[in-house]
């Protein structure tokens, strides 16, 4: 007898199925695609997006939204480059400093949301303007190259894995972050509180859960993830740049939604976000294989996928509430 499928698993299974279908279809259609190299670069190229989406998953699970992640990635990449070149800090110091700065930035937004009960949409919008503005002002809108720094070569050349199956460092960082996030969401007090707050804030409060503190932590975590994404971007591309990752918050939200997380909060899995990011990644590379397809098709395709998943979730929600 088939075990009964729980409704909350349907979206994430659908996401995995879409990814497998898409991946196989692209592999069959374009001979060069199905290789370890392509798969590892799929992970590595989308590492900053994936990191931001990982943090975004927690924010959305808690019922909020974070529009600042793209700007924080840009700010962090630029801070990283400035730490290494202008202030001549060693990477061992610079990386924690940048990550702490991102965490602090997120915690600041979370504090505003907690204590003044401001809508997350507006606070993180202000955060987006602020982070992008600071990044642009600090650099006068110029790239800061760090290709001369030894860390760049080390970061670029280092791969981890066994025999033919090596993964570049950005991919490793992304996978580690996702694995950590899965553990945090599933088996820590903080993770369960996030689900509870997103599911029903009032009940969470009545149960005596630390709702306010959890909200601050969630935005701090998102800031940390985005800052890590910025560090990876700076080290991976060899430059700090204030104008990268424009509108990346949209892709991050899309990845989370396609990954099966409900935007109203409380329902979803971090693992789904990994597949959401991979789906977006595959869709984005298709035009580089198919000459007559242009990049705007990717936008339309992402929009369609969003539609399908949102309607699917809506249907499941209705179905669930009727029982």
């Amino acid at each position, binding site marked *: 007898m088939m075990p009964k499928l729980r409704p909350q698993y349907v979206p994430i299974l659908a996401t995995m199925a879409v990814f497998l279908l898409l991946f196989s279809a692209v592999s069959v259609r374009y001979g060069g695609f199905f290789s370890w190299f392509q798969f590892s670069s799929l992970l590595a190229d989308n590492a900053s997006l994936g990191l931001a989406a990982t943090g975004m998953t927690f924010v959305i699970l808690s019922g909020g939204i974070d529009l600042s992640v793209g700007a924080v990635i840009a700010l962090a990449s630029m801070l990283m480059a400035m730490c290494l070149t202008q202030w001549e800090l060693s990477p061992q110091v610079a990386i924690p400093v940048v990550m702490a700065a991102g965490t602090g930035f997120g915690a600041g937004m979370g504090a505003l949301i907690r204590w003044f009960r401001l809508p997350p949409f507006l606070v993180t919008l*202000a955060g987006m303007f602020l982070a992008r503005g600071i990044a642009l002002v600090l650099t006068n809108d110029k790239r800061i190259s760090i290709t001369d720094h030894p860390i760049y070569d080390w970061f670029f050349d280092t791969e981890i894995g066994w025999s033919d199956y090596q993964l570049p460092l950005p991919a490793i960082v992304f996978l580690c972050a996702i694995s950590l996030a899965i553990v945090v969401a599933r088996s820590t007090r903080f993770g369960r509180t996030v689900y509870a707050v997103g599911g029903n804030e009032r009940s969470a409060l009545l149960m005596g859960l630390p709702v306010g503190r959890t909200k601050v932590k969630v935005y701090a975590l998102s800031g940390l993830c985005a800052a890590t994404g910025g560090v990876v971007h700076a080290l991976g591309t060899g430059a700090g740049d204030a104008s990268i990752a424009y509108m990346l918050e949209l892709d991050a939200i899309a990845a989370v939604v396609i990954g099966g997380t409900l935007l109203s909060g409380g329902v979803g899995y971090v693992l789904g976000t990994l597949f959401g990011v991979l789906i977006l990644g595959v869709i984005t590379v298709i035009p580089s294989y198919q000459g007559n397809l242009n990049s705007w098709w990717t*936008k339309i395709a992402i929009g369609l996928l969003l539609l399908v998943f949102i309607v699917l979730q809506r249907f499941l929600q209705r179905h669930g509430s009727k029982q």
Partner: protein
Amino acid sequence: MRETLKTVLWPAVALLVLLAFNFFANPNFFHLEIVEGRISGSLVDVLERAAPVVLLSLGMTLVIATGGVDLSVGAVMAMSGALAAVLLSQTEASLTVLLLAALGVAAVAGAWNGFLVSVIGIQPIVATLILMVAGRGIAQLMTDGQIITVRGSEGFSYIGGGTLFGLPFSVTIVASAVIATAMLTRWTAMGLFIESVGGNEIASRYAGLNVRWIRFLVYTFCGLCSGLAGIIYASDITAADSNNAGLYLELDAILAVVIGGTALTGGRFYLLGSVLGALIIQTLATTILMTKIGDKDIPTEYNLIVKAIVVLVVCLLQSAALRGMVLRKAVDT
């Protein structure tokens, strides 16, 4: 009425403070002269540049009043501009047909958002996110990813570049749109219905309002406003630029509405406040462009930081929690 005056007072004061600052810091700001039958100067410039955001904020005000939000307005702007430019450059369509088609595609886009929100019951942020992502793609599809220049049609370039009553024609269009919207909502019961849906959806349904239909209409109207903004923008820059038309404008429009005193949670709305909000945003940008510290310009990058501070200050001013804290302290001491 008193409530409205009290709410609109704040953005009006903010705008006056900005203008007063300019009065001392940049006397040039108020310099007006008539060039070829058209008044020109920074004040007119602010009005002309604010035109698209004012239009967007009109539709956005009503959407936000129902408790929703429309993230797709920038993308819809790009779509209508793209369609107008394509029809103009590749077909013999008359100006009327072309404008109707461009507005039509925008209205359909708005109706689609309305359908998703009111019939399927998807949260507004998510529902409009779909078109925000896909709409720009559709616009690029129409223009084949190119920037299409639309020189040559006098009628079309008049919309964004013509002069009427000594002012840019777009100012007249926007002013008429503001008046029309105010009349539609305040001289009929529609405004009350919208506020009622945003205030308490369930109570409105029990009171016999067709909540779905009102939501649907509001999103369609917001699409129409975005379409008109897109036409003005395309005509102003005499080109359809699908990549950049309306980029980030959804955020400015939402900001204008919030500065204007309409709460994101829905309920009462203030059209005049939103118009003032849009003017504040543009005056701020122009002020930063013109102000000099010593003899150095302020880099335009500071615009974003100032905007961030404005958003936060406005939010905090409207925050009931902050007011509670301050009041409680006042009572304690």
